[in-house]
């Protein structure tokens, strides 16, 4: 599909918008509907679009499997680590209120970091799954 001019142009125009939207959903998650899950899926859909138009290899140059595994793991670590930090600060696991001086700010920071972790993991896992299936060649 890479030869199709319309697709190429349109996708190039669309991808940044989709990513921007993903970031919006990501960081507005603590105020309005949204959050890591949705943002991650939206973000990965941008890449999927790129893959469909420009092919798997082009995408893999930018996002090799190893990087995806790393970000997926990093997301989980971010999530779990935030909880542990609040644990070390003397509170319950995932008690964000202790992350900053005031409980309010702490909750904000906590939610944002956690959602970031979720977003990273969901996006990279979605991509990993897609890559795995897309790369599969028929055995015999």
């Amino acid at each position: 599909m890479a030869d199709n001019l319309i697709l190429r142009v349109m996708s190039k125009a669309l991808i940044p918008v989709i990513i921007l939207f993903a970031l919006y959903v990501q960081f507005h998650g603590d105020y309005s509907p949204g959050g890591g899950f949705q943002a991650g899926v939206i973000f990965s859909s941008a890449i999927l679009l790129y893959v469909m138009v420009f092919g798997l290899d082009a995408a893999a140059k930018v996002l090799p499997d190893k990087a995806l595994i790393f970000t997926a793991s990093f997301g989980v670590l971010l999530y779990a680590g935030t909880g542990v930090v609040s644990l070390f600060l003397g509170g319950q696991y995932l008690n964000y209120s202790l992350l900053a001086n005031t409980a309010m700010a702490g909750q904000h920071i906590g939610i944002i970091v956690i959602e970031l972790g979720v977003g990273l993991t969901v996006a990279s896992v979605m991509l990993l799954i897609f890559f795995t299936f897309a790369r599969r060649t028929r055995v015999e």
Partner: protein
Amino acid sequence: MIEQQLSILLVVLPLLAAPIIAVINRSSIAWAMTLSVTVCCLIMSVWMLSGVVDGSVIHYELGGWAPPWGIEYRIDTLNGLVALIVCGIAAATALYAKRSVEQEIPKHQIPMFYCAFLLCFLGLLGICLTGDIFNLFVFLEVSSLSSYALIAMGRNRKALTASFHYLVLGTLGATFFLIGVGLAYGATGTLNMADLSVRLPQAVDTHLVNTAFALIVVGVALKAAIYPLHLWLPNAYSFAPSVVSIFLSATATKVAIYVLIRCLFHVYSVEYVTNTLLPQLLIVMGGVAVLYGSMRAIGQTGMRKMLAYSSVAQIGYMIMGIGFLTEAGLTASLIHLFNHALMKAALFMAAGLFIYRANTATFENIKGLGREMPWTFAAMVIAALSLIGVPGTVGFVSKWQLLQAALEENHWPMVVIILVGSLLAIIYVWKLIEVLYFQPREKMRVTGVASGSENIGRSPISMAVTLWILALSCIYFGINTELSMDTAKSAVEILFAADGGQR
């Protein structure tokens, strides 16, 4: 205080370790981390259990949100015991895993294997520890998804279909469970299990409550492989890598049984369950499971599939005990849960060792292997005797308790079934012993060993030692029943106490 933190650490530790393993991507480090994490968890779970064995309850409010709004981890004796089983088996499996995994899993997949293993472990632990029924569902999915991946890593290509079937059915079961939880939420407006137990009896819409009950039970029954819904189990266990079949056979169904107990006796109450005819159904299904599972086990020609069918039978005993709806019956079930984990893990470990040596565990190919591997064989015999229920082993303790419970209620047919089940167990265990010891050894037909012939010479010490630890614990806990019996009794007392749900 420290015991409270333990409850969350148990889940967090593997949760932290799993991604780190995936990032580092080195098989030896992956194994070392898995082992250290599981051993730490074992120590913590022992510590935690010692804190709750007297009947006290640990509450842990996640994120500082008070229940019933926030998620709560709530550990009583019942949880503590099941968590201990999961941790203990996980630690033993991790110790056993190194060499077996090296042989059975392609090298580049090993770190991911341990990653999935830890995720599965954490999922099972989470199910045990949480006091929130939706959180329980999440952990159920975590453990199930990772176990699908683990099973699919088996060398036999049938592992893929087995895993896929399990995936479809497991998802179906989880969905049933989820719908049930949703209906219960609709009826009461809460997801906290302790809170549910207070509010369910007051719910206005009893049809909703009943439907939720039915859905939850059917969903969990599938996960626990209770008789008519057991179809996924034999293939999943017998085609998985040996380490996976050890771990899952000893923990996964046990945890599902725990969920069933928790839902029946805690979320819903004994009185509620008594009125549903479910106990009778459970007893009948348990009885049929014992006979059917044992019969099928006799007919098998492979060691692992035989053990898998025997698991179906053993789950039948547990279900029967639950179905009696008495303290004695439930105690028997819990003890059997503990004991069966020990012996099944030991038996699958022995099967794993045979696979390590002969590359397969079908009877045809392991003929006479017991004489070449006397130590493995001896440990296997101990565990197998325990499966029969020979006195001095753990199997006897649980069968004895179950018989007592059945006699107490005058369930004579069940008494007969239990005894017949033991006799059938003798037959299939005998078949195994005969194949391994009495049939003449044929030329070893090693097929498709990846790492060359030097592996075939000896059984690795780490694997043999773990097997023996479990085999000896089969005897130890058969003689010193303090841990299993007292814990189970105290757990049951809490469940049956009038205020059991409200604490």
